[in-house]
């Protein structure tokens, strides 16, 4: 009996913690790489619509967003439907042409993601689409959420 007790007393009870900072750093670097710190402040309301036959955008760095929806006036009030690109509302719809053309020159494989409020009317969406055609940014994506029961493509 005393033999067993002696053996137990000899084992080390401590977990080695020397490598812990390395593990933490590895996780840290993973999250640093994954993080995209470029969120814009929305000035229009965008309630996504849902669809079944959707696809994922794999290369997030190629994506440029256009937001279309009713302007947020504060106090729960919404104004007219406006177009927002990056951080600013676009007053002149014909300015989209030049804005998007400049973006295309920077990134030739640009994908334009249209984030449109589900209540917006097709008229303004179509106007924006015509501007995109003129700018030459032809790859677009209608941003939608996944409908329940949808199968990935």
């Amino acid at each position, binding site marked *: 009996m005393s033999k067993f007790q002696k053996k137990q007393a000899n084992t080390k009870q401590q977990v080695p913690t020397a490598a812990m900072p390395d593990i933490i750093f590895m996780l840290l670097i993973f*999250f640093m790489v*994954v*993080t995209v710190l470029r969120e814009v402040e929305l000035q229009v309301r965008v309630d996504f619509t849902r669809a079944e036959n*959707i*696809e994922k955008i794999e290369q997030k760095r190629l994506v440029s967003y256009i937001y279309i929806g009713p302007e947020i006036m504060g106090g729960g009030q919404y104004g007219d439907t406006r177009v927002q690109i990056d951080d600013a509302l676009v007053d002149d719809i014909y300015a989209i042409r030049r804005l998007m053309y400049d973006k295309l020159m920077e990134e030739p494989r640009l994908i334009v993601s249209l984030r449109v409020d*589900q209540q917006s009317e097709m008229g303004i969406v179509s106007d924006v689409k015509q501007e995109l055609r*003129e700018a030459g940014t032809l790859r677009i*994506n209608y941003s939608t959420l996944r409908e329940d029961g949808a199968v990935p493509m």
Partner: protein
Amino acid sequence: MFLKKRAREVAEVPQAGMADIAFLLLIFFLVVTTIDVDTGIGMQLPPPPDPDQEPPPILERNLMNILVNAQGLILINEEPASLGQVQQLVMDFVDNENRAQDPNLSQSPRQAIVSIKTDRQTPYEIYINMLDEVIGSYRQLRNEAAQREFGITYREYSNRVSREDDIIREMYPRNISLAEPDPGS
């Protein structure tokens, strides 16, 4: 005496706090990160129309006109339809060659064009639902073709071959025309 003191100095930085600093940064990035995947319906817009060039002639039987008004009512080739019927109608139209061989529907899937036209007042949601149905019917057709030819789903097939070698995609190209909306009433 001075020499003795100097020899005692230890030239090491304390490293016990390093893990804490790393933890702090880790937690910051954990909180900031949003791993949400962008999903949506991908489309390719046509280049702007050339005013000098006439649009190519299209046989009327190869064109399926879908009209959606502001109330979400649907007209397909002048006949009213419901959203639930759209998928079947589009499949019959596109794959007419292998199905009913109706002389009023498309000659071949490659020549078939589905045109979606809305009013300016049509809500975006209704338009997306419509587009979703049309894309769904193309997916169904491609799936059936992949099952027929290779015995696998189209998704598995497209993962195996490159985009250029994708013969199913070539068989059923997604010719969807998004017409400019009517001014409406």
